[in-house]
């Protein structure tokens, strides 16, 4: 997958609160589908659907243990998404921080004009 498409998939995956909760749970260690389904009022197939989305985005992977197939977090992919976010955020922060500085200048100039 191309980098931008991959990020699209990551962001789409993170847009859902249940999937974010699953990610948060996996951040503290791998877990089976049954374990992941526990905190949610949701059927196992519904949870599996969410897991498939996360898997396609590369955010989680499956362990090898035959029966349990525990899911685990792919932290690197999450970090990539965060870096991308940071760029966007920095762009607007930068704009508005320059505006802050400009406004300080304008205020100072007004104080000097009687």
């Amino acid at each position, binding site marked *: 997958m191309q980098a931008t498409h991959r990020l699209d998939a990551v962001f789409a995956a993170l847009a859902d609160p249940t999937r974010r909760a699953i990610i948060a749970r996996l951040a*503290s260690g791998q877990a089976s589908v049954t374990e992941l389904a526990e905190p949610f009022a949701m059927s196992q197939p519904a949870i599996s659907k969410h897991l498939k989305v996360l898997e396609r985005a590369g955010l989680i992977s499956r362990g090898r243990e035959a029966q349990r197939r525990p899911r685990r977090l792919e932290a690197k992919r999450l970090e990539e998404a965060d870096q991308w976010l940071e760029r966007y955020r920095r762009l607007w922060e930068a704009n508005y921080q320059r505006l802050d500085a400009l406004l300080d200048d304008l205020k100072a100039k007004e104080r000097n004009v009687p």
Partner: protein
Amino acid sequence: MKNALTITPSGDRDLVMTRVFDAPRRLVYDAHTKPELVRQWLGGLPGWSMPVCEMDVRVGGKYRWVWKSERDGTMMGMGGVYGEVKAPERLVSTEKFDEAWYPGESLNTLVLVEQGGRTTLTQTMRYESREAREAVLKSGMEEGVVASFDRLEEVLAATANANPR
């Protein structure tokens, strides 16, 4: 303390940005309507200049902004028409990029509210359709990202704690 910027989707077609500035709104309004001030802050990308910044701020008046990459000469232009001009509290304009990647144009409404010498800026961008907003979100303001940004930060913090390097 730094003033926080929030960006959230609203309804079907809107994106809403809010930010507080430690200045009276008269000045914030000037900074959005006087070309010599606008070009001092708007643009964001390091290594880009703003060779064109023309603004005829009156109802029906046009504006045009062009940025240029100093590295490879790439140009990025956009412009629109002012629909409402109510100094120093409200400015409504259309916005369309020269090489728009989403259908139609957006209708941007800037609202400034002053309280105790500080100004709250609210910028609402209304797109032609839900699909157009999606396209914008996908390119630079992914909806999920915006909606979940704070949550994502929490998740990342949890990840960092769980996997200390």
